[in-house]
């Protein structure tokens, strides 16, 4: 199962073999026992001070989010800056921003699993957790942006006395199903992958409460042969289910815009462009939180190595270039279509009142990540972290440009108006970061951040053939 070549001392290899040898996935010749001990110790040790120092402000911001939500629901959507041409603004911008971030986790866990990319094992757990938390942050917006939140259940195909069914032609309804399916499958996938590790924590637990907590979550896992067989099959099936979802969710989100008639939205390029952008932004966010986490738990650098970061940076520069291509293609099509409305829409994006958002987007998403062509910047973690902030910002600008700029000037000039965010817009957005990091902090404190049993399987010791030395 493991990389055969990694098990053999390089001295035994022929020059040809040495040329193609893959670097080991776990550094410093860490043993299985060390992995289980160290990863579990993050959960088992006394709560560190830094954790409280981070959690308290994050909880406060979550409280601000809660306050804004209560104010929004009790007062009306007008507490945001949305107006008449701009019916969607920061609400849907933030929704698409967060749902985009929620793409990297499942991509790493499912697509890289199916394509047998073994480097995924040490990052998939945290990345998937991040996915779930991002989708939770995202789900707040479509749920609450509606005018009558208490009637949002009309979106569910529940038989009702009015005899009115949902409108299945509406992309917004597709969105509801796409996002809820994605969240459900991602939760199942994540939880299934957690079970063997939860059993490890249960077996190591010393207090009654912990035994009960992890024992319940481990669902009676004993690590028996049959259980592993079932587990592997379930995990494979869930990976198979998740893979199309990674591509479909953001495609469906893009349909909200692509199927409309509005110039700047009505574009067939949107689905692939949105998916690439989502992976781009998602990987940047994974690195944004993994690099500090590994800096705190330094020995994790043996598991999440520079080579991992390097590979993720390559994904970022690749998807960032796809996004850049899409931006340029949009401009080309606006010109080539000879449609004056289309031309005007893109003219206003680049040179209209929101020009700063457009050029910020261009710089952050297209130009800044190109620095990852240089190995130095892919392998020096401080640089990686700094450069990753550009995609994080740029992807927010992208959604803002697509949504608010487009709506503020479409077909009828008499209706044109600017959008100005209010303090509720701003604090709700900041508050979702509070919620996101609160959930992530709770995750690293109570669940194993690294998938222990999968990382063990990529150790040289896990390979019964010892790199074919047994012949």
């Amino acid at each position, binding site marked *: 199962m493991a990389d055969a070549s990694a098990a053999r001392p390089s001295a035994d290899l022929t020059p040809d073999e040495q040329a193609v040898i893959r670097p080991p996935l776990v550094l410093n010749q860490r043993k299985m026992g060390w992995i289980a001990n160290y990863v579990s110790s993050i959960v088992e040790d006394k709560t560190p001070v830094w954790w409280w120092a981070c959690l308290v402000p994050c909880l406060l911001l979550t409280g601000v989010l809660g306050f804004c939500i209560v*104010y929004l629901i*009790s*007062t*009306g*959507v*007008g*507490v945001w*800056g*949305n*107006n*008449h*041409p*701009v*019916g*969607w603004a920061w609400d849907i911008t933030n929704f698409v921003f967060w749902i985009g971030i929620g793409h990297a986790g499942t991509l790493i866990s499912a697509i890289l699993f199916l394509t047998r990319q073994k480097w995924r094992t040490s990052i998939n757990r945290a990345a998937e957790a991040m996915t779930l938390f991002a989708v939770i942050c995202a789900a707040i917006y479509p749920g609450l*942006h*509606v*005018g*009558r*939140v208490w*009637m*949002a259940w*009309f*979106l569910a195909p529940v038989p009702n006395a*009015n005899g*009115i*069914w*949902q*409108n299945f*032609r*509406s*992309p*917004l*309804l597709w969105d*509801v199903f796409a996002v809820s399916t994605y969240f459900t499958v991602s939760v199942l996938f994540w939880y299934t992958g957690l079970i063997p590790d939860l059993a490890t924590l249960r077996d190591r637990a010393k207090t009654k409460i912990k035994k009960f907590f992890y024992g319940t979550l481990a669902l009676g896992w004993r690590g028996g042969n049959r259980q592993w067989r079932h587990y592997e099959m379930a995990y494979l099936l869930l990976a198979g289910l998740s893979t199309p979802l990674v591509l479909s969710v953001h495609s469906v989100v893009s349909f*909200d815009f692509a*199927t*409309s*008639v*509005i110039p700047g939205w009505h574009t067939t390029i949107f689905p692939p462009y949105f998916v690439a952008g989502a992976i781009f932004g998602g990987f940047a966010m994974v690195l944004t939180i993994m690099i500090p986490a590994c800096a705190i738990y330094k020995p994790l650098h043996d598991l999440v190595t520079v080579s991992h970061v390097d590979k993720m940076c390559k994904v970022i520069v690749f998807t960032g270039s796809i996004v850049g291509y899409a931006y340029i293609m949009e401009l080309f099509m606006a010109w080539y279509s*000879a*449609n*004056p*409305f289309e*031309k*005007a829409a893109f*003219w206003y994006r680049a040179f209209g*009142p929101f020009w700063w958002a457009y050029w910020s987007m261009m710089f952050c998403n297209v130009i800044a990540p190109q620095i990852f062509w240089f190995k130095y910047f892919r392998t020096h973690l401080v640089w990686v972290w700094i450069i990753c902030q550009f995609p994080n910002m740029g992807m927010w600008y992208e959604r803002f440009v697509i949504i608010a700029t487009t*709506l503020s000037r*479409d*077909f*009828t*000039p*008499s*209706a*044109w*108006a*600017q959008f100005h965010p209010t303090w509720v817009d701003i604090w709700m957005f900041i508050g979702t970061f509070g919620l996101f990091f609160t959930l992530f902090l709770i995750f690293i404190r109570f669940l194993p951040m690294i998938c222990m049993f999968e990382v063990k399987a990529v150790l040289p010791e896990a390979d019964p053939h010892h790199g074919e030395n047994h012949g």
Partner: protein
Amino acid sequence: MEGVGFNAYPLRTTAALRFRDGVAIRITGDTYPLARTQEARSMHGRDLFREGTLERYEDDPKFAGKMGMDGHIPPNISLYTHPELTSKEQWGMAVDLNTCMGCNACVVACQAENNVPVVGKEQVRKNRDMAWIRIDRYFAGEPEDPEMLAQPVMCQHCENAPCETVCPVNATVHSEDGLNLMAYNRCIGTRYCANNCPWKVRRFNYFDYNARPTTELYWGPLAKKGMADSLKMSKNPNVTVRMRGVMEKCTFCIQRIEEAKISRLVEAGPTDKNKVPVREFKVACQQACPSDSLVFGNINDPESRVARLRNGDRGYVMLKYLNTAPRVTYLARIKNPNPKIPGADQVGQANGAPHGAGHGEEPAEAHGAEAAQGRPAGHDEKTHSAEEVHH
């Protein structure tokens, strides 16, 4: 002054009834954000309002239907199936831009008839006015002496309505007599319909405008709840008073349509109702229009005035290339300036000179000229940014 505006009346006393001297105007340096419903000045070359000179009309009476992109629309098909328009009456409207002078009487009449809430200056500044019919005002010609174009715009009741396909809960649907309906009780307020409306005529209740005072909209549940009795009495009992969080828009005065249809039933008694014509009635904006610019009626009846205007020479629909099949037809304005008056060459030229006969041969050039119009003129952009600073 917040809320009520400014009062210059104290300047006019009994001592100086008609003229007052000794009054000076000086620049204070203060700024005051104006509350207005439209910021754009020009049509940005979009041929939404169409006009021509009498000469052009005589040259080609159907010139209005061929302007802009309308001459270039490929055969269009709709991806969606649409409800069948089975009713004998198919409602439509014609708006005569020749006679409309932009007096806003229709706007006020609609406000009164349809219980359209008054939202206050603060909300108008935030672009949240609720008017179901609005007068779009554009300027054309020389900036020193511009021509004003006034165009009433209400829900176009598109047969292939973009708003209907995007509503996730089926709150906006089509009736068999061609009305684009809003089911307020079903609406959850996603605002997707408004985003997808090319005319931007849909209005969202961002606050509980009918139940809370306009000065306390941001107070949420702490604001006074309920409407004064005097205000309640001003409401039309035949029209729903909408709550916050729902979308609303012009209904073509559906209460008047239904009233007429009900009285037809009464009239028909036991006989076949389809043999009895719906009695004459007017919608609120039409009733108030002093120049008879708005004509409402059954477009299915070729003898009706609306059908004749709709199919007449000057008729055109806005944004035809979108294939939404609007039920509102605009009638182009025809000008006949005395050539001796200054600036006569600018009159009737809001859409530019006709690009006429050479069109077939030289399409590329003609397109280029249109594309240039699609972009804002440098002048317009400048005035815009000045206004924004002022805000």
